[in-house]
Every structure is written in C-alpha cells, then in structure tokens.
C-alpha cells in the first residue's frame, strides 16, 4: 500500500533534518512544496539557504536522468552596445574552470555517456544534461564547478566570438527567415530590450572583451539566480545531499535591478522593405501580444491554433490549399515574461506577391475580429495542444525542459497542465476578445521581402516553366 501524504511529509522532514545537520551554512535545504505534474508525477520544490532553487520530479521508467540548470538571465538583461553577451557567455560556460582544463567539461560528460546542450533566449539561459543515472554525481559536481569557478581567458573568448559570429551567419545573415525575424523585432520594439536579437548584432559580438564576460559572470551566474530541474530515475535523498554539498559553499550574488523599459503602445502600422537573395516574396507580420502570464495568452494561443495550426487551420487552407499563393504560413505566439509579438510568417508561391499574402491574411484576421470562431474549431485546437504537450513529455529531457521553462518564466513548474485546463474552459467569446484586443493593424509591423535580382541566377519562375 502506498504511504499517505502525511507519512511522506514526515519522512521528508526527517530526511532534511539529517541532511541539514551536516550541511554548510549556504547549503541547508528547505522543502517549499509539492506540485502535481500531470496525472501521475509530482514535483518537489526545494531551496538552499543561498537561494538556489531545486525542482525534483522522480520518474523511474528508464535508468536515466536529466539535470537542467536555468539561469534567470537572457538577452533582455543586456544593454545597447553589448548585445549578444548572454549567448556568448553560454558558449564560454563549456570552457576552462579552476578544476578543469579547456575541453575537459565536454570530455568528461561524453565519457559518462551524457547528452549535453544549452540555449539562450530573451528571458533565460538554459543548460541541459541527460545522463545514465549512475553518473549523476559527476554532473552535479561539474555544474556546481562551472557556476562559480569558470576561468575566462583571452584565447577562449576570442575563439568563441568567432564561433558565435559563424552561428550568426548560419542563423541570420545567410538565412532569410532568421534575417526577417530580426528586422521584424527591431522594428516593432523601440524601447524594450526585446528589440535586439539574442544572438547579438555582429559589431557587438566582435567587440566583446574578456572583462565584459567576467563582469557578466560575476553578476548573473550565482545560486540565487538559478533553478536546478532534475527528472528521471533519481533518489531524492542522495540527490539533495550531493547538491547541498556541491552548491552550499557557493555565494549568492547581489542581482542588479533590471533596467526595464516597457514598450510604449504602438499606435500606427510600420512597414519595412527588405531585399534578399531568395527565390520568392515573403512577409512577416508582428502584432504586439501578451506576456506568457497574461490572462489572454491562452485564449490567443488557442485562436492562433485555429488560424494557423496544421493543414485544417483557416490560414493554411486559404493560402496554401485554396488560393495556392503560399508554400507555407505559420505563427508563433511569444512565450515571454514581458509582452512579445505574435509573429506570422508566410512564403509566396510562384509569382505571387507579399501584398497578396498580406491581403489574404488580413481577410482571415478580419473574420475572427468580426465573428466568433466555432466551438468545433476550439475543440480541435485543444486536442492538438493536448497531443503536443503529451508528446513533449516522453523523455526525461522533455519533462525537465517543460518544468524548467514554466518555472523560470512564470514561477509555476506545472503551468503546462494549467494552461491545458484553462484551454478546456475557453469559449468563442474568449477568442473573440483576444482577436479584437491583439489583431489591431495600428499595432503591427510588417516586413515585406523581395527577391534580389542577381545575374548569377535564373528567375525561379522561368525555371519552373
């Protein structure tokens, strides 16, 4: 028979008392609560006295574990002239520490059979390791080591700057969609830090110094600015004991007050023309949208699923299948701490123009602003979202990413399930309200992309004949 909740709570209390009796001052562990994660799993919240948050989700299906570290620093914390620093720093975190030579971090993890990666975005930086469960102590040691004891030297900084510059060329300079998105955001935002790209402007990347990186590290890489998320085949007691020992001695940082500049309301439409070496015209449209935590984010996401989600969605049917003027049309609803953009992207087919795409998209958006969508469409959108959520939870990494993302942006690690429940309560009126609130032409920015004529290439429309 499974133990009752009160029995489990008592056992946990005793465990923590024993653990804390031997812990360093900064490493005493407090239990902050239990959060259900779906129908079966639970997340246990802990915190060290130095501010490090720890979320543990035991799942014994396979003998593996995921160990993710989420730092609450992203490109929004940068300043003009130093854009891209959070992302460059993410690269540098794989380098030398006081205990490890350059390259040893990755080598030790690979030797242990781990899969490791990282990512930076507007609000956060995220390091993820998936590892066979018996090697978890290694990850705890290495992650604590690089949180506090990274060594930054000129040769590594120089080399990583070049890698990042190449990444920028790959994702932006030579990539049409990447370049268009960058122009869209920098045109739609004039004040808020979301206006510059996470990868940074090239001159800023090239201009970083080792001192810039050191200052950034000292400020933001501290236990009180991080959350550990551990999922998989773990033993909670052993895990917490090791985390307390490894991270307990680390000191908190005095985090600066963020220099927040809320974006003033956009009151008239903006349009940018862009020429690119591309085969067809394209359009990107950015409507100012809600923050992830805003009440209407779920309704707007459901509306966008009705409009753009899959082949049966209104926009795909109209633009790709009926009018045959686009090869692709899609949307992303910014999942950010502050209001972001609802970003629409469409690629024209054959000789069709960006204007034709815009007019067809506008016609469908006008429809949802003037009349409610059907209950049947909302139900379909919810079913798609449910499938998407479940499919993302198959691996320990998927669980840790979902938990860590929602904890970092909203402070609610199981918010993915909350959103699904909220979506079940949505009615046509909610989506109508969201449409009227956000799909206003006066608050949108358009980027119209035209193919650059080049003597080297044939006109794709001629080649198609």
């Amino acid at each position: 028979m499974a133990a009752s909740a009160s029995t489990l709570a008592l056992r946990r209390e005793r465990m923590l008392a024993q653990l804390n009796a031997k812990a360093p001052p900064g490493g005493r562990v407090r239990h902050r609560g239990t959060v259900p994660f779906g129908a079966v799993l639970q997340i246990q919240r802990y915190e060290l006295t130095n501010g490090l948050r720890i979320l543990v989700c035991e799942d014994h299906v396979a003998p593996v574990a995921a160990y993710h570290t989420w730092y609450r620093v992203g490109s929004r914390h940068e300043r003009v002239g130093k854009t891209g620093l959070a992302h460059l720093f993410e690269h540098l975190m794989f380098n030398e520490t006081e205990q490890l030579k350059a390259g040893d971090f990755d080598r030790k993890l690979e030797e242990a059979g781990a899969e490791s990666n990282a990512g930076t975005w507007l609000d956060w930086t995220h390091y993820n390791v998936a590892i066979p469960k018996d090697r978890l102590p290694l990850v705890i040691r290495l992650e604590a080591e690089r949180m506090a004891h990274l060594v930054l030297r000129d040769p590594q900084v120089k080399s990583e700057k070049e890698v990042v510059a190449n990444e920028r060329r790959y994702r932006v300079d030579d990539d049409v969609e990447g370049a268009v998105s960058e122009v869209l955001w920098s045109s739609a935002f004039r004040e808020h830090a979301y206006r510059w790209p996470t990868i940074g402007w090239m001159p800023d990347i090239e201009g970083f110094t080792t001192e810039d990186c050191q200052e950034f590290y000292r400020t933001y890489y501290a236990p009180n600015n991080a959350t550990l998320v551990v999922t998989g085949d773990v033993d909670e007691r052993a895990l917490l004991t090791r985390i307390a020992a490894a991270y307990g001695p680390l000191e908190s940082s005095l985090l600066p007050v963020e220099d927040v500049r809320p974006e003033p309301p956009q009151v008239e439409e903006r349009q940018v023309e862009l020429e690119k070496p591309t085969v067809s015209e394209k359009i990107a449209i950015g409507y100012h949208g809600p923050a992830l935590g805003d009440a209407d984010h779920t309704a707007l996401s459901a509306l966008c699923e009705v409009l753009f989600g899959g082949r049966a969605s209104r926009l795909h049917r109209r633009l790709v299948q009926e009018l045959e003027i686009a090869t692709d049309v899609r949307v992303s609803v910014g999942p950010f701490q502050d209001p972001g953009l609802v970003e629409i992207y469409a690629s024209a087919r054959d000789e069709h123009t960006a204007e034709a795409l815009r007019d067809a998209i506008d016609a469908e958006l006008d429809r949802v602003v003037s009349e409610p969508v059907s209950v049947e469409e909302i139900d379909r959108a919810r079913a798609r979202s449910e499938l998407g959520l479940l499919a993302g939870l198959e691996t320990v990494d998927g669980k840790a990413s979902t938990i860590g993302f929602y904890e970092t942006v909203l402070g609610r690690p199981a918010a993915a399930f909350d959103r699904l429940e909220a979506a079940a309560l949505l009615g046509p009126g909610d989506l109508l309200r969201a449409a009227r609130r956000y799909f206003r032409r006066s608050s949108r920015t358009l980027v119209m992309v035209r193919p650059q004529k080049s003597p080297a290439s044939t006109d794709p429309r001629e080649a198609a004949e």
Partner: protein
Amino acid sequence: MSEVLVETSRELPLVNLTVAERTGAIEDPPGKEGLSRLVARLMRRTAAGLTPFEIDVRIDQLGAALGSEVTHSVASFQGTTITRSLDAFVDLLADVLARPALSEPELQKLVRESVGEIIESRDNDRALARRWFSRRMFQGHPYGRSLAGTIPTLRSITRDDVVLHHRRTCVAGNLVVAFAGDIDRERAEAVAARLTSGLAPGTPGTDRTPEPAAPDGRRLVVVDKPERTQTQILIGGTGTHPRDADHVALAVANTIFGGTFTARLTREVRSKRGWSYGAYSSLPYDRRRQAFSLWTFPKAADAAPCIRLELELLGTLCKHGVTKRELDFAKRYLVRSHAFAIDTAQKRCALLLEANLYDLPEGYHEQWLERVQSVTLEQANQAVRARISPENLLVTVVGTEAEIGSAVRDAIDGLAGTEVIAFDAD
C-alpha cells in the same frame, strides 16, 4: 501477412504507430522521380473519398497526427494518437492505406504544391549541399536520384502512374506495422489486422539495388549562390553497412574522428580555430552502403583553409589511425550513451523497425554493445584504411563561386575535376 512489432509503455496515454512499405523511392521509374513521395502524400489526402479538409479535421479532432516519409528504401506513414482515439484513428488510417481516391484534381494540386516546395528549398543552403552531394556522390546509382523529384519529373507523373504504384507497393505482404506506447501485443496485432484487411496480400518487394561505386579521384562541386557570407561544405566517399565485417570498428573510428563534440574534427575546426559552429562526420547506411561524410559551415573567407584542414585530418586518420586512448574513450562513450537509444518505447521500436526494414544482420542492435566493447585498435585502424580513401572523395560547397571558387580549388591537392552549378539549376 504483415509483420507486427510492438514496444509497450504505459507511461503516457499515447500510441505511436508506423506502417512501413519495404519499398521506397528507388522504385520510382526513371523520369518519374518523386512518384513514391507523391503517392504517399496523396493517399494521406484522399482516404475513402473524403476531402483533404475532412481528413485533416478528423485527425485533429482525435488528438492525433499523421504524416508520411519516403526514403530511398522505405515509404512509411507515421501516426501518433491519444489512446482514447486509437480505434477511430485506425479506421481512418485503414482508409488511407486501402481506399485512397487518388483523384486527378488532388494529384495536380499536390504536384503544384510540390513544385513550390522545391523552389522554396533553394533558400536552404544546407539542403542544397546535401542534395547536390548525393546527386554527384551517387551519380548513376538509385541513391543519387531525388526523393522529392524535380520539377519536370513531377509534372510528368500521371494518375495512372500513381494508381499503379499504389497497387504494387501497398500490399499486406510488403508492410511492417510497428507500435510503441500505450498498447499491448494482443491489441496491436488486432489493430494491424484491421489496418491491412482491405489490402491485397502481395509479397515483399525485392531490393536489387547494387552497391554504390566509390568516387574516382578528388572531385569538386560548387553550388553557386549569390551573397553567401558563409559556405556549406560536405566532403565524403563511400561508407559502410552493418553487413560489413568491419562496420562496427569503422563506426567506433568515426566516433573518434567526428562523432562527438570533442572529436578530432570539432576540436580542430571549431574549438581551436572557431571556423564553424558545427563540425561532424557521419556514417549512415541504407540497405546498401551510403556515404561517409564530413559537414562544416565556415564563413566564406575560411572555406578554403577549412577544406584543406579537413583533407589533412582525413589523411592523418588514414595514415596514422586512431590511438588506444581515443579508442577506449569512444567505446566508453558509445556504451554508456546507448542508454539514450533505448530510454523510450518509441526509440526501442525505431530500432526494431530499422533492423527489419534495412535488412540488418540478426541481433545487430541486441549485440551492439558487445561488439563495440570488443573492437580492437588494430580492427579500428584496419577498417579506416580499408573504407576511407582520402584520394577518392567528393567535395561539395555551397557558396558564391566568384568569391571563393579559385581559393577552394587551390585548397584541394590533386583535384581531378570541378563542376559549378547554379543553385537554382534544377
């Protein structure tokens, strides 16, 4: 009777389902490249005479997803459904397989859509590199033919072609049905029987594809695209197949050379010089040997020195081999990371499918760890010398010819031939 593979997991209320034909794009008649892919997509859109919209709505309502994928050797439908919708999803998929209308108007619409996709794909430099590398690496061989087809071949495909292809390949004897997730064997076999009950019995396809020939000398293909600040570079030769006695030894050697983030290639190209965001070597296989290849993407100014370096690294690998220290490290990595090849039902099922569809030797995946552990230094180095030939390679570069062409040619010693192709040539 179709073969049924099952991996059960009750962790999530999801069932992943794959119906795979043991025939793929190599069955496309000459001049009709893209036929297999077109047929699979058209089946998906015209099941039981429903409109594509009706089918898409039904799938969405069920909380399911259904797509198709065509490779050279296999054409498959891959679906995922929430468990509660399994029966309804199976009914729909059975219609897709056995009762597609394959209507002329939908065929023509799909051809137009596919043509648009081919044109649009010219924006993707990595896809361009891969496409032209395959075409020239396997010139004259079925693996060099385009999976998506070309604009002229797509436009030449008729409804008769489609119907004939469907009748010939979508038969019960040519199918493998695989399940992963919230389903047990008993139910899976019942579902598989329902899926295939409307199909003709048929027999499994026979793959008469020959082994591909190795490149003759060092050859260069430049895919010329304007305004490239960065290049996409693929360098390779013929690879291996699990039937080869030295396959596992070569796989271990490939791990050392370019299979991980700390491998020689990434260390030299990215870590030391910062020349490319990514640098990897890969050793895929089909039912026959595929191509061993290196992939990097340096900025334009670094393309030539990067190519020279990669060729030097290959030369060093073949001349001096790998070290014992490297071998032991790679073996530890491969053995321990294998936990992530089998940590979900879907991944385990994918291994079963691969073994079945690609004619792998019996017990290939089950014995993988044991065989990796037993690879010796001599075996690894012998495999490298036998299978990798630095003097017989294809180098494919997507970049701006006027800016980099001359330097790239100078970087390849003993270059036997060069071809410059406009990026939108097809």
